[in-house]
């Protein structure tokens, strides 16, 4: 054969693989600019539109989004210069802590100033000093910017009002050396990471807070997890597969198929979501385990040695395994957490991608043999399995179902450094009564003070720390307004002082029309307009007044009130999603039971398939009771994966009537799953670690049960295949 003929022949034989490689390259090219979202919490939206609007509007006003805060009083000038340079290089733009409000809005709060202060501001002595100050500043290059301000507020009522507000609860928020910076969009993780590293190196002389830093930490954690978990699980699975099958070509098949499933999973997520969570990308490292399982279940189906009966039983096992896996993922798909949904879409996309990938290689798959091992087994009757399941259910009832609660910290990666920063700024916010804020609904025509009165009486809200405590009485405001009666004449005198220094300004003589006595609602509305905190809002046709919870009432949101601080808001939201997912999980189990009853036509077999789940649930409940922990959303997600993966073991062995081939397949897939999810225990991201722990525990129990316990059915053992098939 000539070289050309050999090459042509090889090309013809490999044309399927070449087509797959071309498809992989095209898919990789199409997905090359996939944007990764680092924070799985930020994208959560409350399903109740009123709660969602209250939270979003409060957060938007409170300015914790798209900006960072740095407290750098302890730095030397050189360190400050280094920090400034790093911030500028990363694209951070300095911004005022307080957006300069329109002068009219500030002046409308002038009745807050005591009459004595106003009389002093309008006195000749003060006007003369202010004119001299204006002349001094006007002499500086660029001094006209100050003169423009002066023309809008000639007597300096605005600064006096802001100074008074900054002494009140959260009104000003001016923290001496705290600087605010607008975040660059989109974030460039390398340069933001450089800023973060510099800030960390300067602690504890500097404090910093901002979502960007959480994003950087999550980005780094996800990168670490993607690389580490992918490599370890791939190497482990390839080695395992080789030990069981002794064929290198299958390793290539698994390797290439895993790339295909990763890309199709990612492509499926991209089809529904603009951005992909980095933690979901890290999660795709587990696909090699799923794929191994699919490959194993589909392998060896054409082998005639075991006869047509074996093929029928094997197909029953395949349909049981694939069906329960799909149902497990579909259940996750119905959840409302975007991250969980993305994981479900990625899993389904990856699974179908891998199954399609196997089509051109079905002949190769048909001839695979598996090494079998002698494993002791304990035969039991269906009645025993039923008693075991009932005992587990009774044990579960006795131990108690663990509490279902999810906290934001369990959902994203946080380093000790960020924890320390959070604690520092929480203390700061607490000083302003803003650490744990709720929105309290007010009945129509109710004063803001009256809406809060029951909570104040119950000790839930401290009236002395609420800005309403700084609202002067009607009488005091009337006195202030009387003092402002001389405003126009004072402006005239001030102009005369300025003209003596050569300055020519034309400030308005009249105060804004809106100036007048302030009631509680007007005061809070205007305070919210000039300060960093929204103290009142109109949402859902109701008026709401915001208030900070006292330490004694922290975390206990009164009935009817809505939490608008991030931590309690997201905790409540994630917990509600967890409960929802828990119900979906149970619905998925019911659906699987119906599906398996239809396929297996035997209650004993279905009970046998579900028995490991009963055991796992009891083991988990006992563990949670002893450790005092609760179940969170990732555990529920892990349970869904357990039923998607681990129920396959008992389904396959019972379908194959505990034949050696099926047991060898289950041993291989079980070890693969344990390895793949066990690797996740090394992840930095808490979501992946919790997922790894849950699936590992569940799968270990299922694997042990499927291998060591066999179901004895009358007449069934006679159909069992030949023991000890050679590899």
């Amino acid at each position: 054969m000539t070289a050309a003929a050999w090459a042509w022949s090889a090309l013809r034989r490999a044309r399927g693989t070449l087509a797959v490689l071309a498809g992989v390259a095209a898919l990789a090219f199409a997905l090359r600019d996939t944007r990764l979202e680092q924070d799985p919490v930020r994208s959560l939206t409350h399903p109740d539109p009123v709660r969602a609007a209250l939270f979003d509007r409060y957060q938007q006003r409170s300015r914790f989004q798209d900006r960072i805060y740095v407290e750098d009083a302890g730095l030397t000038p050189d360190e400050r210069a280094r920090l400034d340079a790093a911030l500028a290089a990363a694209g951070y733009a300095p911004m005022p802590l307080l957006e300069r409000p329109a002068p009219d809005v500030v002046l409308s709060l002038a009745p807050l100033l005591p009459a004595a202060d106003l009389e002093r501001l309008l006195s000749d002595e003060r006007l003369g000093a202010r004119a001299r100050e204006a002349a001094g500043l006007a002499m500086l290059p660029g001094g006209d910017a100050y003169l423009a301000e002066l023309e809008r507020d000639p007597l300096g009522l605005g600064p006096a009002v802001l100074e008074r507000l900054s002494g009140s609860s959260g009104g000003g928020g001016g923290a001496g050396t705290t600087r605010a910076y607008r975040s660059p969009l989109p974030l460039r993780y390398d340069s933001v990471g450089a800023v973060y590293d510099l800030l960390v190196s300067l602690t504890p002389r500097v404090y910093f807070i901002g979502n960007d830093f959480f994003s950087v930490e999550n980005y780094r954690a996800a990168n670490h997890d993607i690389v580490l978990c992918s490599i370890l699980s791939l190497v482990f699975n390839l080695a395992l597969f080789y030990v069981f099958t002794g064929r290198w070509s299958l390793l290539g098949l698994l390797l290439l198929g895993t790339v295909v499933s990763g890309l199709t999973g990612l492509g499926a997520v991209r089809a529904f979501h603009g951005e992909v969570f980095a933690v979901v990308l890290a999660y795709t490292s587990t696909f090699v385990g799923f794929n191994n399982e699919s490959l194993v279940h589909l392998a060896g189906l054409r082998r005639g040695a075991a006869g047509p009966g074996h093929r029928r039983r094997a197909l029953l096992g395949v349909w049981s395994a694939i069906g329960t896996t799909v149902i497990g993922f579909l259940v996750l798909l119905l959840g409302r957490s975007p991250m969980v949904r993305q994981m479900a879409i990625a899993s389904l996309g990856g699974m179908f991608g891998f199954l399609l990938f196997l089509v051109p290689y079905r002949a190769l798959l048909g001839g695979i043999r598996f090494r079998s091992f002698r494993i002791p087994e304990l035969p039991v009757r269906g009645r025993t399995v039923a008693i075991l399941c009932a005992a587990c259910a009774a044990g579960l009832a006795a131990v108690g179902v663990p509490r279902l609660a999810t906290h934001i910290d369990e959902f994203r990666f946080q380093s000790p450094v960020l924890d320390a920063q959070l604690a520092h700024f929480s203390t700061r916010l607490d000083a302003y009564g803003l650490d744990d804020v709720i929105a309290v609904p007010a009945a129509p025509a109710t004063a803001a003070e009256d809406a809060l009165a029951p909570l104040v009486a119950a000790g839930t809200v401290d009236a002395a720390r609420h800005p309403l405590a700084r609202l002067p009485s009607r009488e005091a405001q009337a006195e202030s307004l009387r003092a402002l009666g001389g405003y126009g004449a004072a402006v005239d005198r001030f102009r005369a002082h300025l003209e003596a220094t050569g300055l020519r300004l034309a400030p308005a003589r009249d105060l804004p029309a809106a100036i007048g006595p302030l009631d509680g609602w007007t005061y809070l509305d205007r305070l919210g307009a000039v300060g960093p905190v929204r103290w009142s809002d109109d949402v859902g046709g109701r008026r709401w007044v915001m208030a900070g919870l006292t330490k004694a009432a922290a975390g206990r949101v009164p009935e009817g009130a809505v939490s608008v601080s991030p931590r309690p808001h997201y905790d409540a939201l994630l917990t509600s999603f967890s409960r929802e997912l828990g119900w979906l999980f149970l619905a998925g189990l019911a659906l699987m039971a119906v599906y398996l009853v239809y396929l297996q036509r035997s209650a004993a077999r279905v009970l046998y398939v579900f028995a490991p789940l009963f055991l796992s649930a009891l083991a988990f409940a006992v563990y949670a009771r002893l450790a005092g922990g609760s179940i969170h959303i990732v555990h529920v997600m892990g349970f869904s994966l357990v039923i998607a993966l681990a129920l396959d073991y008992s389904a396959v062995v019972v379908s194959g009537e505990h034949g050696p081939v099926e047991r060898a397949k289950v041993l291989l897939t079980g070890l693969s799953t344990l390895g793949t999810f066990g690797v996740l225990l090394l992840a930095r991201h808490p979501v992946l670690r919790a997922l790894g722990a849950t699936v590992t525990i569940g799968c270990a129990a299922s694997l042990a049960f499927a291998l060591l316990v066999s179901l004895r059915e009358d007449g069934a053992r006679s159909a069992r295949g030949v023991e000890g098939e050679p590899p």
Partner: protein
Amino acid sequence: MIAAVLALALAAPDAPAVTADGLRARHGGVRRLTADVVQVKEGKYWARPFESRVALRYTPERVEWETLAPVRALAVIQGDALWLVGPDGARRDLGPAAGDPKLAAILRFVRALLAVDLDGIERDFVLRYGPGEVTATPRPGSDLGLFRAVRLRFGPDLEIASVELETADEKTRLRFERVQREQRAPAPAPAP
């Protein structure tokens, strides 16, 4: 007559070639600078062109801008802080500028401008070099967008001669006289 004018023009020294490297060499490493400055301001807020005499005292940490006539006033910039000292010696603190990036940017710019600190100026401005002068225009989105243009003119030895600042409402001309400076000795050349 025409020949005389032509001769004078030809005999006049050429405007110095102003380059970034030349300016950095001349003005880099200033430890102390003093100058008498004649300032003329005119524009919307001034009844007539207003001329004042100013004593400038500069160190990298602190700038004193003392108006000597026709009114006495002292403005001090130190770090991000700005305060005024009136004729009575009373200090009027205008508060830390940390909370207002615009004011902080103006103070930063003034410091950089008076020391001809090119890196500091370039933070907010784009520089264009011409014969004997440098023109600075604000970068898009800069906090110093109030300035339309800033022109720095230099003498033959690249010493600062005058500065013109133009905003929407005001034009300021600064003429520098009796400039005295102390500079750090250049770093010793590395041993061969």
